[in-house]
């Protein structure tokens, strides 16, 4: 078995605040439609939450999955299974030896709804009423396990947990599985279903969330001077990674090459980014070097850009630190301005966007910028989406997570 194989992307799946599928999501993204809405759930007022909006799924999972699937999986795993099935069908549901098909699906938080529902059940109704599937529903690897069941994948099912970098790190795990010969195909991505009052309360107490309650649609505004925090989102993004020779042999449609990955950790603070961006820039440089790319090859960056006051500047600094003047040629998109922040699914969904941007040579705009922050030294696409050059191009996806996790990966045109 060769141990340095090229890896390509042959399938895409997603369920997001912008749409129940990849085509619906991509169309809304290019149209600049925001996904955040005022929440109508009773718990918003019950707990007097300081934030009253979020970006919920455009198509509820109950419209896609069976009643039994909804009952036996936490929303976290439900979203992953929906996206994985779409990605697998999009790849042409290839015939493959199950022992050569892997899964890598990460999450930031896991089955928080199940954990807290079952805790309530124990306290209010006693141990006999606790659901026997409580543990397999709340465990963070529930999504990767359920995806492996749904697709019959037996090369290994992995779950990376690195907060908001989880989805990107999973794609890196899948890439490494194929590159090093452990699998021929890997279904990889991230999922999150954590729009739960405890998450609002926790993030709100950190002052991490936008409190623009009177205008949910304009609350996620990366790079604007008046940005005041991120907007909670939910959903999943999943891709099918495949060894290039395997994809070519079966005549698969290839979106792009998954070209390289870089990872680092800040060891600076449990939540605050290291302000000079040393760790983040190392991850970016490694993502290029491992792919044999030079900074001049990168025409587009899908930034992490969550719309927090310090995070957006730290990333901008890190990009400049990594690429210097070459960063001038990189068209930057902050797609969280539309999707909200999908936490453990964010890097995966943005990975889908980065792949589509290279495939269609079209980079999405960042919406809600009315007063561009002069501290951001990046070419941020505003207003209309932008065409990317012809010829060989490459793009970079950045994802960072609480805990100091930095994950960057590169995608090349084929």
């Amino acid at each position, binding site marked *: 078995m060769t141990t340095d194989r090229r890896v390509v992307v042959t399938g895409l799946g997603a369920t997001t605040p912008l749409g129940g599928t990849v085509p619906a999501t991509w169309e809304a993204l290019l149209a600049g439609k925001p996904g955040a809405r005022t929440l109508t759930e009773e718990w918003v007022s019950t707990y007097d939450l300081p934030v009253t909006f979020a970006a919920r799924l455009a198509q509820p999972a109950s419209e896609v999955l*069976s*009643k*039994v699937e909804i*009952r036996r999986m936490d929303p976290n795993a439900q979203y992953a299974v929906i996206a994985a099935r779409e990605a697998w069908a999009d790849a042409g549901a290839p015939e493959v030896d199950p022992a050569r098909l892997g899964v890598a699906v990460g999450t930031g938080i896991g089955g928080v709804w199940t954990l807290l529902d079952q805790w309530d059940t124990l306290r209010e109704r006693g141990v*006999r*009423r606790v*659901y*026997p*599937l409580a543990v*397999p529903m709340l465990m963070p690897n529930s999504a990767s396990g359920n995806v492996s069941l749904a697709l019959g994948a037996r090369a290994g099912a992995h779950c990376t947990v690195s907060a908001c970098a989880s989805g990107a790190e999973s794609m890196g795990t899948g890439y490494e599985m194929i590159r090093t010969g452990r699998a021929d195909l890997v279904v990889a991505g991230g999922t999150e279903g954590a729009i739960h009052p405890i998450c609002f309360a926790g993030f709100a107490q950190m002052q991490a969330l936008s409190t623009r309650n009177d205008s949910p649609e304009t609350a996620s505004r990366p790079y604007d001077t008046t940005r005041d925090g991120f907007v909670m989102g939910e959903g999943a993004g999943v891709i099918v990674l495949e060894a290039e020779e395997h994809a070519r042999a079966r005549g698969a449609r290839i979106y792009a090459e998954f070209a390289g990955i870089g990872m680092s950790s800040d060891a600076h603070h449990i939540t605050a980014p290291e302000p000079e961006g040393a760790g983040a820039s190392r991850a970016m440089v490694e993502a290029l070097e491992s792919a044999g790319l030079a900074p001049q090859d990168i025409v587009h960056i899908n930034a992490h850009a969550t719309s927090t006051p310090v995070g957006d500047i730290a990333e901008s600094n890190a990009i400049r630190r990594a690429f210097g003047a070459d960063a001038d040629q990189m068209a930057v998109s902050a797609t969280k301005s539309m999707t909200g922040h999908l936490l453990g699914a964010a890097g995966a969904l943005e990975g889908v966007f980065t792949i589509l941007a290279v495939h269609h040579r079209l980079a999405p705009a960042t919406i809600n910028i009315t007063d561009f922050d002069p501290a951001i030294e990046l070419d941020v696409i505003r207003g209309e989406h932008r065409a990317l050059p012809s010829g060989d191009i490459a793009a970079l996806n950045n994802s960072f997570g609480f805990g100091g996790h930095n994950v960057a990966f590169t995608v090349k045109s084929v």
Partner: protein
Amino acid sequence: MAQSEQEILAGLADIVNEETGLDTDSVQMDKSFTEDLDIDSLSMMTIVVNAEDKFGVKIPDEEVKNLVTVGDAVKFIGANQS
């Protein structure tokens, strides 16, 4: 008040359907929960607890292994209803 076996079977079939998605018609007296209906031990626990609530009986954990077929469960419930 004791229910007829048919009433208990119908009620049990609803519980099985809710937990597993199996068609209620497939839940017949002679069917084995594990062999015929492919119900695992986790689902069986949920079915037992829901049956306790629905039929007003206590089904001890040590009794569950004796409930091999749907008929075993229907008869146990019928015999233990107050």
